[in-house]
């Protein structure tokens, strides 16, 4: 890379918060780097300071306790796939993780990075939305907790303010055991952003859908009930999204496939 920047790697979470506070305008957090580094290389982002959050102790913590599964900001997508707790208690999380990019990217890309980028085609967001996960947001002045249903603010925008970072993702214990499946429409395994993605989960008769690549943000749909027919379920899902036409697919194609996937999932996820 020709573009030059400074690199800082704080050793504690408090130090990270302080460093970030001092670089609100010119700093960028580095997690897996699978978005940031190509963006810098392509001149899309020009941070003066790159702040690595992987080096502080506890950043890669992945643990299951009374509150549920706690995912530190340096936990990678493959860490999730290798975790027994995630596989056994939150199979849906693994289903979505498995759809994300290629094996090498899954070894580096983090769950936190995938949601903080707030791309409409985030693969982890549907799982976190359906499972009722919460974002623990930290800054030099304190900590706040925001459910993922209120985390995304627009295309590539979240509720994170300058100086704040996502210090943990908590997937609640109540959601353990939710069954479901993620269907992602793409051309080539491992090399494509989704054209659309639909996740459906079912737990104790409660149904949830989440859709990616179909609106400015990933969308949660919790209005479908077991009494609906497959067609009604698809109608409710479609009413919540607003897909656009772009290089990956047209609006009409996206709408059609969201309907197909919603009906298929409604019948198949038991």
């Amino acid at each position, binding site marked *: *890379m020709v573009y030059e920047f400074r*690199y800082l790697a704080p050793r504690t979470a408090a130090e990270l918060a302080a460093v970030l506070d001092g670089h609100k305008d010119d700093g960028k957090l580095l997690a897996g780097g699978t978005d940031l580094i190509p963006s810098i*290389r392509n001149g899309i982002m020009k941070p003066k300071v*790159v702040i690595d959050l992987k080096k502080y102790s506890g950043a890669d913590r992945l643990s299951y306790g009374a509150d549920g599964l706690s995912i530190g900001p340096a936990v990678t997508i493959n860490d999730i796939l290798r975790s027994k707790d995630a596989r056994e208690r939150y199979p849906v999380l693994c289903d979505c993780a498995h759809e994300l*990019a290629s*094996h090498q*990217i899954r*070894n*580096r890309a983090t769950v936190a990075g995938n949601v903080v980028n707030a791309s409409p085609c985030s693969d982890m967001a549907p799982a976190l939305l359906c499972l009722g996960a919460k974002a623990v947001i930290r800054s030099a002045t304190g900590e706040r907790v925001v459910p993922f249903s209120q985390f995304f603010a627009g295309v590539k925008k979240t509720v994170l303010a300058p100086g704040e970072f996502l210090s943990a993702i908590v997937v609640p214990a109540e959601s353990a055991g939710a069954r479901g499946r993620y269907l992602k429409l793409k051309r080539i395994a491992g*090399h494509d952003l989704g054209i659309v993605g639909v996740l459906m989960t079912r737990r104790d008769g409660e149904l949830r859908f989440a859709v990616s690549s179909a609106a400015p943000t990933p969308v949660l749909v919790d209005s479908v009930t077991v009494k609906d027919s497959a067609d009604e379920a698809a109608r409710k899902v479609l009413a919540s999204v607003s897909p656009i036409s772009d290089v990956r697919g047209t609006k009409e194609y996206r709408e059609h496939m969201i309907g197909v996937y919603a009906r298929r999932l409604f019948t198949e996820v038991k």
Partner: protein
Amino acid sequence: MRIQLTVNGLGYERDCAEHRTLLRFLREDLGLMGTKEGCGMGECGACTVIMNGRAVNSCMVLAVEADGATIRTIEGEADGPSLSDIQKAFERNHAVQCGFCTAGMVMSVKELLSEHPKPSADQVKEAIEGNFCRCTGYTQIVEAVLDLTGSPEKKGELEHV
């Protein structure tokens, strides 16, 4: 920034610009030219190396992030003139044509075999899904791995990978 890392069993300590990628560092600072740059942005896998046991795209890792890391590259495979088992299997099965993807392919396969010594054809395909090969059509690469590991599915089903 001063960094210290182990590459193919040898320790190195170097001054390194903070914006330098691990790929450039390996090729230009350490002179290990076996690892290739294809796209430079995480699409092609030509730059795959193993960092702390995991296959990664070295074009998307900063060299300074690898401070303290243990790295394996294609140069660590052969022992003098004698190829490693993975390399021999690639050679036997015609899994190399132009060779541009091969260093990365071998590294991805190496990580796979460290975790799954007897992978299925599907596991092999998944392990190399981040590695583009524009020559072989992939079939010979999958066959090379299954040939090496003696996995049962070697024949059949592979014809239309």
